[in-house]
């Protein structure tokens, strides 16, 4: 039987250690939140603005490695909801920085700050006009015949539609990260947005789309204890100096919402969440059917095990829907954002993605 006096001594030691940690926490709080509350500068990877259409901007991140990868890597993030600078969060914690250091020339489409004047922006405009023009620009600039295309979340819905409706698209390899395809498995968002009572048409008519405030409220409702958990994690880890800039950056991004164009939201809600048309092959854009079976490119699909926005099964649906022979699915630990922008992405998603792309990018 353990000696209670020894156990008491261990407990006392543990209390002393915790006391020291608390002193460090208070010290770090004073220095990083009171004296210098400024957020760390984000999106620091060098880039050029190479194309612009209204608010939509196409950035090029030149390769930083001696040996450059043969094909450019094009990122298409989600439209609306939040800004895409999470993909280039902080030096040392940036997916874009990692890729350019591995030799990839990365292109990122930034949809801009969506507001009411964008209410008529829909899937058709993006799939038939904007994305093809952006890809044209990329091919002209890079002087290559093809590229690697990566869709994130709703950006994957856009790229899925683009690939299907452009059979001759110059896309060598296709990557879909936390992209919803089987909206029946969409979790809480499916329950709310898939219900007939959700007043999409009234909302779009009145606000031109989803306004920023409503977007923020909706996502907070998905995890009501999210802020409490985040602050608790901050306190528990505030004795580690390197934790604080990452927290500040992630916190700033997580509260930096933008709206969603009305037409796009209407399509997402009516056609996808309510009727799951993409997986069923019933989605029509400008009279043409989006049948995922016609996607033939090698495909890499990543999902997050604790994703409450796009549950793993919703993303995995793409695997059985496409006609690709060479396809790989990875379910990684983490949430919707942390899977590609969190600490574990360094050792999990990014290296796996890079290896997969390099193997299939020979010109």
């Amino acid at each position, binding site marked *: 039987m353990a000696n209670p006096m020894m*156990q008491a001594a261990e407990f006392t030691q543990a209390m002393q250690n915790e006391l020291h940690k608390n002193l460090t926490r208070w010290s770090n709080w004073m220095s990083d939140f009171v004296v210098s509350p400024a957020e760390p500068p984000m999106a620091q990877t060098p880039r050029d*603005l190479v194309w612009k*259409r209204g608010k939509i901007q196409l950035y090029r991140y030149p390769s930083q490695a001696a040996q450059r990868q043969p094909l450019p890597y094009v990122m298409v993030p989600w439209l609306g909801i939040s800004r895409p600078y999470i993909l280039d969060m902080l030096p040392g914690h940036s997916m874009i920085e990692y890729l350019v250091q591995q030799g990839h020339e990365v292109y990122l489409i930034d949809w801009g700050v969506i507001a009411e004047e964008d209410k008529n922006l829909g899937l058709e405009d993006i799939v038939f006009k904007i994305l093809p*023009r952006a890809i044209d620009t990329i091919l002209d*600039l890079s002087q290559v015949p093809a590229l690697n295309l990566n869709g994130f979340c709703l950006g994957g819905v856009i790229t899925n539609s683009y690939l299907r409706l452009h059979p001759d698209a110059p896309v060598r390899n296709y990557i879909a990260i936390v992209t919803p395809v089987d909206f029946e498995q969409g979790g809480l968002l499916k329950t709310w947005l898939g*219900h007939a009572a959700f007043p999409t048409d009234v909302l779009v008519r009145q606000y031109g789309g989803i306004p920023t405030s409503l977007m923020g409220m909706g996502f907070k409702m998905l995890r009501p204890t999210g802020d409490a958990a985040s602050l608790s994690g901050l306190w528990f880890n505030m004795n580690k100096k390197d934790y604080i800039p990452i927290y500040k950056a992630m916190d700033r991004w997580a509260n930096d919402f933008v709206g969603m164009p009305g037409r796009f939201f209407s399509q997402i809600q009516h056609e996808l969440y309510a009727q799951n048309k993409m997986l069923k092959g019933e989605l029509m854009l400008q009279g043409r059917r989006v049948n995922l079976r016609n996607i033939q490119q090698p495909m890499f699909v990543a999902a997050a095990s604790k994703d409450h926005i796009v549950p793993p099964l919703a993303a995995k649906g793409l695997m059985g829907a496409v006609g690709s022979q060479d396809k790989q699915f990875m379910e990684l630990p983490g949430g919707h954002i942390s899977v590609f922008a969190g600490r574990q992405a360094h050792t999990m998603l990014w290296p796996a993605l890079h290896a997969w792309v390099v193997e299939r990018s020979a010109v």
Partner: protein
Amino acid sequence: MSPQASPNNFTEFWQDFLRQSSSFWSQAATAPQPPDPSHAWQQFVTMWTACWTKAFTLSPDTIQTSQKLWMDQLETISQGFAKVMGTDTFAAMQGQFFEQQLSWQDHLTKTIQPQTDAALRALNLPSRNQMDRLFERIVNIEERLDDVETDTRLIRRALRHGNDAAPVADPPPARARNRNAPEGEGAES
């Protein structure tokens, strides 16, 4: 870390403590008073100390266990919310509430719209509808410019590839631009 330092054992520790406390106090209440009242308190303190000693034995990493318990609690609460909010009833209720709010807002907007427009006219400021129409025209102009740019690129590409005798010079590469460049600057293609 002791293998017994788990939330389950912590819960059992509290259950055991409450059980022993209740038993002690009920016995103390019914038993005849001892000549020395402090004796009862000594018994209680001994029992209390024994319980806490058992806690030290069970969980020398009490602080980490407490932190984990707290985070587990938050996760449990979140899952509880998700269960309630994930029902069809909640979705219907939410949709109806939303619609009511929007209808009320719409009614209010329409009621005060004439007064708002009149005030803006008096101040020589554009109304929301006028701004909307302006935005639509700007978006249309951008689309037309986009079409012109695309056609120009196609023509240039066709000339470059189709005319071997007089090749057309490639367009200049995009200049490196400061990412903090002010809005409105377009990039050369």
